[in-house]
C-alpha cells in the first residue's frame, strides 16, 4: 500500500527542517506543503493542528501528528527498519530526549527572546545562550555525532539551529564560543539530508531583520 505522507511546512522553520531531515534519512517521499505563516494559516493547518495552529504537521495516511520532536520519534518508530535515529538502550534514549528538550527550552526559547526583543534588555539571555551551547559541546564530547558513531535524534534536533548561529551573533551582538559544534555541524552538512534542507544563513538573517521591523523592535 502506498503511504501518503504530507508535511505542512515553513521553509525557514528549524522545527520543520527537523522533520524533513528525518524523512530524508529514512528515504521517505513526502508532499511538501508550504504554509504562508506571515499572512494567513491554511484551512488544512487549522484543521490538523487546532490546538497549536503551528507547523510542522505531518499527515500520514490522513492522520496528523504535531510537535517536531514527537513527529521525529513517530517517523523513527513507524519506519523502524532503516536509519534508526533513537538508540536502542533506554538510558541513551532518555539522554537523547532530555537534551533535545534542552535544545527547545534552553537554546531556541532563550535565543528567541534575544532576536525578537530589544537586545540591550537581554544581557542575561545572551550569557545563557553562550553557556547552553557550550553545555551541548560537553554532551557531544569527542563523538562524531551526538548519536555516537551514527547521526541520530539529537543531531536532528540541533542541526537546523546551526544556520541561525550567525544571526544570533549579528542581531544579539554576541560571540558564540562553540568550535566543536561548528566542526560537528560541518560533519552533518556532508549528509545529503542536512545539506538539502538546512536554511541559507543569509535568508535566516533577512527573515529575522524583517520580523524585527514588523514587530517594531528595530
Amino acid at each position: 500500500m502506498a503511504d501518503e505522507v504530507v508535511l505542512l511546512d515553513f521553509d525557514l522553520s528549524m522545527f520543520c527542517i527537523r522533520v524533513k531531515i528525518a524523512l530524508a534519512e529514512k528515504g521517505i517521499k513526502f508532499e511538501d506543503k508550504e504554509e504562508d505563516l506571515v499572512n494567513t494559516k491554511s484551512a488544512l493547518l487549522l484543521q490538523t493542528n487546532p490546538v497549536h495552529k503551528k507547523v510542522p504537521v505531518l499527515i500520514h495516511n490522513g492522520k496528523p501528528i504535531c510537535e517536531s520532536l514527537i513527529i521525529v520519534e513517530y517517523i523513527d518508530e513507524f519506519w523502524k527498519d532503516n536509519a534508526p535515529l533513537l538508540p536502542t538502550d533506554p538510558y541513551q534514549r532518555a539522554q537523547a530526549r532530555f537534551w533535545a528538550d534542552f535544545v527547545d527550552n534552553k537554546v531556541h526559547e532563550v535565543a528567541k527572546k534575544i532576536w525578537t526583543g530589544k537586545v540591550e534588555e537581554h544581557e542575561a539571555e545572551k550569557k545563557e545562550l553562550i553557556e547552553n551551547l557550550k553545555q551541548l559541546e560537553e554532551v557531544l564530547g569527542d563523538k562524531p555525532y551526538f548519536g555516537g558513531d551514527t547521526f541520530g535524534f539529537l543531531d536532528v534536533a540541533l542541526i537546523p539551529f546551526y544556520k541561525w548561529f550567525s544571526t544570533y551573533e549579528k542581531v544579539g551582538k554576541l560571540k558564540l564560543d562553540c568550535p566543536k559544534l561548528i566542526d560537528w555541524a560541518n560533519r552533518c552538512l556532508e549528509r545529503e539530508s542536512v545539506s538539502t534542507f538546512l536554511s541559507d544563513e543569509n535568508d535566516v538573517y533577512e527573515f529575522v531583520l524583517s520580523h524585527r521591523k514588523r514587530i517594531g523592535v528595530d
Partner: protein
Amino acid sequence: MAASQEEVTLLGVTGSAFVCRVQIALKLKGVEYKYVEENLGNKSDLLLKYNPVYKKVPVFVHNEKPIPESLVIVEYIDETWKHNPILPSDPYQRALARFWSKFIDDRVVGAAWKAVYTVDEEEREKNVEESFEALQFLENELKDKKFFGGEEFGLVDIAAVYIAFWIPIFQEIGGLELFTSENFPKLYKWSQEFVNHPVVKESLPPRDPVFAFLKRRYESLSASK
C-alpha cells in the same frame, strides 16, 4: 522483573506533582526504590550532581545513571520494565500520548497555577481563560474513554495527575471554580476514577499537608501585595 543487583533511587519532594508522576509509574510496574526527600531551599550535593542543568526534582537514578524531567523518566521506566505498559504499542497512538502529555506541561500546568497564584488581576484573569481553554481541549480529547489510555491508565493520565489532584487543591485555596463537574463533566469524572485507582491512590501524597503548604504560599503572595 528487576534484577536483584539493581539500585533504583528517586529524588523528590512530597507534594510535587512531577515527582508523583514518577511514583505512579514505579508503583504500576511494582519497582522497589529508595526515596530521597530533598530540601529545595537547601539543595543536596546529590541533587546538584545528578541534575546540574535544572537542579530540580524529580531525578530518577538507576544503577547510578541519573535521569531528570518527569515525562522522560516515565518513558524510561516504561522501556526498562516492560510489563503493565504505560505507552501504547502503535506508533500513532504513542505520538498522540506524547502530544497530550506535552500539552499538559505546556498549556495546563503553568496557566492553572497562575490562575490562582498571580497578584495582578488582569494577568490572573488571562490565565483563568487560558486554563479553561486548555482543559476544554482535554475534555474533548477524553471523549467517553475511562482513561486517556483507554481501559487502563497511560502516559497522559499520569501526566494529568496535576489536574486530578493538585488543581482542585489550589483552586479551593484561591476560591476559583475552574475544574468542576459543571465545566468539564467528562474530565471531572475521569479525575475521580483516576485518584481512586488503587495504584494512584497509593502514590498520591496526603492531601492535608499539601493543602496547608499551598495555602501558606497563597497567603504569603497576597501579603506581599
